[in-house]
């Protein structure tokens, strides 16, 4: 589905297409970019976009954004995901960056924004804790003021790519007496600070994406507090809104769906009774994608008229993740017998994988995609949000 584009926007779209075709690093086209790239490899595209001035489409111009219209941002989103480029890591540019330029002071903006834009600082997110799950406000990690420092003790978990990170933004409890959301603060912590350790968590697909982060008497300069003490929940919610809007994933789903169609026609013969079932299943998912894309376009149009999309983000998160899970499930089924095989991590070309290449990541993607309906606020929680905020139940 295409937006009706003006001549000018069409020109922009063509420019974006040409730029991706010319500059997207071929070494980033590996079987599974999310798990197979080294830190430096995964930063290649980030640095190219930084040089071009396109790294932070959502940022205001004064902080280093490109000054795009909502339509231009959408075109960018669509073109990059259709081309299958690995998006720059969200934790810096999409998440903590906007918190810093919205709620941080001038010194913090100067200190942190350049490193986020250039990719020199790799950020990770210290929200979840053991036992907290989707109930983020149950933060137990404590920060106690000691002179011009906070002393932080606690345990963060499911921390994505913390093994590469230079900085972590953390929710910490600064007022133990206050109720749930009230006593939370938003703190930026240098990963090299003594007392901070990272332990890998291997997930069911065999990859190392997430980690435990332990904080033991970690001394953090008080100047790394964002905004006001005990107001961290406001900033955290602001950030989560940004996280969820990007979860519709139309471009990615469209790409994987096209791939699935090719796999099905290669794997399943005309005389196989299962073919009809696959054809129907694929058509259903395709319609799901179409409906979500149309909804996204409708919301974009509303936003450009100044209407607040409200909890639309929850709808995108629910349907976007369900659709992608379904596609990875169907792809794994389509591979047939070779769906029994799974790559070992860290991935290497020397490791033998049987069957056609297009099937080599089917098992790990199916397994890995199970996380989508859990993280970023489980889909059950998203439904609760809509029930409460939209339906008034």
């Amino acid at each position: 589905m295409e937006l009706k584009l003006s001549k000018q926007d069409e020109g922009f779209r063509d420019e974006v297409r040409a730029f991706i075709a010319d500059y997207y690093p071929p070494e980033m086209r590996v079987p599974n970019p999310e798990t197979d790239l080294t830190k430096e490899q995964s930063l290649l595209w980030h640095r190219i976009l930084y040089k071009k001035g396109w790294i932070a489409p959502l940022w205001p111009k004064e902080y280093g954004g490109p000054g795009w219209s909502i339509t231009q941002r959408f075109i960018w989103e669509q073109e990059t995901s259709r081309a299958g480029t690995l998006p720059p890591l969200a934790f810096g540019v999409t998440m903590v960056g906007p918190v810093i330029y919205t709620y941080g002071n001038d010194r913090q903006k100067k200190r942190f924004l350049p490193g986020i834009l250039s990719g020199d600082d790799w950020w990770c997110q210290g929200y979840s804790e053991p036992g907290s799950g989707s109930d983020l406000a149950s933060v137990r990690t404590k920060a106690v003021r000691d002179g011009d420092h906070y002393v932080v003790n606690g345990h963060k978990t499911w921390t994505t790519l913390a093994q590469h990170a230079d900085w972590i933004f953390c929710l910490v409890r600064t007022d133990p007496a206050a109720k749930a959301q009230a006593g939370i603060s938003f703190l930026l912590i240098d990963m090299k600070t003594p007392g901070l350790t990272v332990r890998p968590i291997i997930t069911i697909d065999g990859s190392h994406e997430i980690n435990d982060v332990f904080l033991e008497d970690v001394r953090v300069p008080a100047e790394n507090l964002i905004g006001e003490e005990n107001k961290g929940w406001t900033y955290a919610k602001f950030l989560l809104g940004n996280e969820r809007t990007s979860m519709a994933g139309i471009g990615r789903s469209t790409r994987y769906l096209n791939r699935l169609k090719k796999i099905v026609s290669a794997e399943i013969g005309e005389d196989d009774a299962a073919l009809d079932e696959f054809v129907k299943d694929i058509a259903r998912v395709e319609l799901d994608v179409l409906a979500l894309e149309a909804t996204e376009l409708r919301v974009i149009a509303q936003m450009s008229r100044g209407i607040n999309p409200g909890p639309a983000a929850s709808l995108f998160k629910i349907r976007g993740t369900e659709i992608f899970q379904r596609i990875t499930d169907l792809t794994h089924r389509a591979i047939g017998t070779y769906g029994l095989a799974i790559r070992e991590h860290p991935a290497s070309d020397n490791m033998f994988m049987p069957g056609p290449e297009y099937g080599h990541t089917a098992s790990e993607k199916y397994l890995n995609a199970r996380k989508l309906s859990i993280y970023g606020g489980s889909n059950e929680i998203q439904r609760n949000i809509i029930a409460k905020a939209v339906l008034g139940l």
Partner: protein
Amino acid sequence: MDIEFSDEQVQLRNSIQRLLQDKYGFDERTRIVRSDQGWSRKHWDSFAELGLLAAPLSEDFGGLGEGPLATMIIMQEFGRNLVVEPFFETVVLAGGLLEHAGSNAQRQAFLPEIAAGNATWALAWAEAGSRYDLNSIATTARRSGDEYLLSGAKAAVIGAPWANNLIVSARTAGDRRDSGGVSLFIVDRQSAGLHLQSFKTIDGRRAAEIVLRDVRVPSDQLLGPEGEGLDILEACRDRAIAALCAEAVGAMTELNSATLKYSKTRKQFGVQLGTFQVLQHRMVDMFIALEESISLAQHLNLSLAAGEPHSSKLASGTKSKVGEAARFIAEQSVQLHGGMGMSDELNVGHYFKRIAAINIQFGDPTHHLMRYARMN
């Protein structure tokens, strides 16, 4: 229709449970899966000692003659404990094929060895491009004097890297998709011209791609009549499905009880997870899915034990229905465990992966749904 188990059967189940509880905990299982070998000879020997490898096999050849219901009991307990040792491949598949289609000499030569735990086997039926059709075979067997020469390639043969012997399907006549002309051969895994490329499976086992280049097989190692292998394989698949569904039921039982326990202890937003009605209903649906699966798995195993003529249609129906139920339970168990469900350290994800593999072995739920729909 609930099976009333005999005292012997109850005893069999109790003794397996004791053995696995004592010796085959999740940590031990993890250690075995991560070892270079990928399975444990020590545990295999203890299974043999307990009589598990002999239980379903005929008393005339070293077995205990307890039939499909013993297989069901064993597979269910193995499913609950995620046992990786090749009981299914060796006893259910190869043992069953030898018993039902083997010559007396072959039974005499191989079944007592299987029952005693001295040999492991694997069945090589699938090929690249055959999908789930037993008769889609390009591998050929050419008669030459008193031997056959086997050439071709077999795909994703589970347990092959561990096996002493293979049973290989090959064409002695006909074209790739013909139902006639399929023959089965007993092949020594060390045979000249037989090459294995091993890989790990999604559920922590080992499998191999097998290439055969003029592998010489003595003609007395033909299993069953020449050209009539498809019927033999189809009956083998029915038994395989009955065993795999019993194993799936074991895994589903553990997932449901782990998820229920978690939802009663885990607190979120100040209350137990289990107090959320949306999760209560989910777990009720998981309970129903398990009850239906237990019923169908028992029904199929009873039908096989009684030698019912329509077992094959029932087998496909059961594979489809239990497969979908198992997938639902597995996915929801991960979901309800939240981030913990994604962690390799928790057993939940490993049940999930075993169920994913079961759903592929001998045909996925869609394949069997369509087969069921088209059978009379």
